[in-house]
């Protein structure tokens, strides 16, 4: 009998736990430890943030589902890993947790494990930029609660515009090292669409602020798409959409601070500027959630298990090298800790070897370029693959068999550009592989037959379908495992 502990009930952790339960016999325990009582389908937070959906439509309570599927659930946050056990509690590996609910708030406990998956996602690092975030002077859509309060502020702006006031909207990423450019893009085009739908577009000035070198980089070094007899970079399509929608933009930007009513920006070339706003939605940079690690004697081994940014080191090549020397082989394949073979990471929690987009720094050495995204689909595929490998290890294999390298994996992404069943649109994109491979695909780094993008109403229908399909799957309703990641 083995006990597998999963930290985090987001896209990666929840997928891992669901498949572990499906594949492992009932004599094995699957335990999920996560601080929130609910699951959040984060991609649809965008629609909550523009007042189109209620928060309740994108979250559901985890406890009843886990109870039904015989998955133990601790509403707690992990604080430290003890992979060699604790000095007092014996050699069995443990994770130290602090309860955040279930009537035990604040209580600390050690939970033993045979295998552990760290799927704790990101810490939303609003503190990196003074004044950034819901507790400062800007909004966010990273959590369902953030999105709900963003929606209130957005609708207030709309009311002002209806009374004849002009409103300035600043949307984008709130730091030079951010990673969520795709989500910021989605939010700004949805916001613009909603302003039009509500008849107030003429009263709005919208500015998009991004750390991308060019629009359409999305943290994946951009992509090239065959269309109209040309192979064109995603910059062309993204700039075209912004021109069509009348959205101004600042690229290569680091937000230095967010004051009430104005963001202060510095671009790669050192230009400083102020962008005034009445409403700002700026996404934060991500770090790991700050788990600590200790050995059997209680000595701190955090830096053995985690990279300086707090993400967990796995089987990647972390040697520092320039952009020109990056290869697909740098990227992890089985997400196993090199320090402890029963430790794995999935989703945003694993430490990438380096970004995907070329790293650019300003004169002061500050990075102003996107960190690598780990979007929903790869997070879920990695979560499932890690679960599959753990099941094999429990059954006696000596090493992980299945791989899920982002250099051998594609991503499908549907970015909503306006939500309406007849007049809405979305940009549907696929790319293969996520990490460009210039050995296999010398010209563009990706397979042009599988890398495509198109804007249209069909994309919006697909986005709606995905919303319902993935919530159905996450609720582990009959046939859930047949729905692809």
């Amino acid at each position: 009998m083995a006990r597998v502990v999963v930290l985090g009930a987001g896209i990666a952790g929840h997928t891992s736990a669901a498949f572990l339960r499906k594949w492992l016999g009932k004599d094995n325990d699957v335990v999920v430890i996560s601080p929130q009582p609910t699951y959040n389908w984060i991609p649809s937070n965008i629609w909550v943030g523009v007042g189109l959906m209620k928060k309740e439509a994108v979250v559901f309570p985890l406890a009843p589902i886990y109870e039904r599927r015989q998955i133990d659930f601790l509403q707690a946050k992990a604080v430290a890993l003890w992979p060699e056990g604790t000095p007092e509690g014996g050699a069995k590996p443990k994770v130290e947790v602090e309860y955040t609910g279930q009537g035990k708030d604040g209580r600390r406990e050690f939970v033993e494990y045979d295998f552990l998956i760290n799927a704790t996602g990101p810490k939303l690092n609003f503190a990196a930029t003074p004044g950034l975030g819901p507790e400062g002077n800007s909004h966010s859509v990273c959590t369902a609660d953030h999105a709900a309060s963003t929606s209130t502020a957005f609708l207030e702006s709309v009311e002002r515009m209806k009374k004849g006031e002009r409103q300035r909207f600043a949307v984008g990423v709130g730091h030079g090292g951010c990673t969520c450019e795709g989500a910021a893009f989605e939010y700004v085009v949805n916001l613009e669409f909603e302003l039009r739908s509500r008849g107030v577009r003429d009263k709005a000035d919208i500015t998009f602020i991004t750390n991308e070198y060019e629009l359409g980089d999305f943290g994946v070094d951009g992509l090239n798409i065959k269309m109209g007899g040309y192979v064109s970079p995603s910059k062309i399509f993204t700039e075209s959409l912004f021109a069509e929608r009348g959205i101004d933009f600042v690229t290569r930007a680091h937000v230095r601070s967010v004051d009430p009513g104005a963001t202060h920006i510095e671009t790669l070339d050192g230009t400083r500027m102020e962008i005034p706003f009445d409403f700002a939605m700026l996404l934060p940079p991500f770090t790991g959630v700050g788990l600590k690690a200790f050995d059997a004697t209680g000595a701190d081994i955090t830096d053995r298990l985690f990279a300086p940014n707090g993400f967990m080191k796995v089987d990647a090549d972390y040697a520092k090298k320039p952009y020109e020397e990056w290869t697909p082989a740098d990227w992890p394949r089985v997400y196993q800790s090199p320090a402890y073979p029963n430790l794995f990471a999935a989703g945003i929690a694993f430490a990438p070897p380096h970004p995907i987009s070329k790293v650019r720094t300003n004169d002061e050495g500050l990075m102003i370029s996107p960190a690598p995204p780990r979007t929903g689909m790869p997070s879920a595929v990695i979560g499932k693959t890690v679960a599959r490998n753990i099941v094999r290890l429990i059954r006696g294999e000596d090493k992980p068999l299945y791989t899920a390298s982002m250099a051998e994996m594609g991503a499908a992404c549907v970015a909503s550009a306006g939500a309406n069943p007849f007049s809405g649109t979305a940009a549907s994109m696929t790319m293969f592989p996520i990490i460009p491979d210039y050995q296999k695909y010398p010209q563009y780094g990706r397979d042009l037959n599988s890398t495509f993008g198109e804007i249209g109403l069909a994309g919006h229908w697909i986005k709606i379908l995905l919303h319902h399909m993935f919530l159905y799957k996450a609720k582990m309703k009959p046939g859930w495992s047949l729905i692809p990641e």
Partner: protein
Amino acid sequence: MNKPSHLQAPRPTRWTLFWRTFLPWQLWRFLVINLKMLRMMRLEKKHGHKRR
């Protein structure tokens, strides 16, 4: 600020905009895009997820 001037970025023609929300065409595209996504997942199964 890099204002997206009408001259700098290509803009869709009225015809392009029409096709983007023209129902029969979009029903067809719905099918095509889904097939493209499924194809990509097949590729992924072929390349990734494999035994070492």
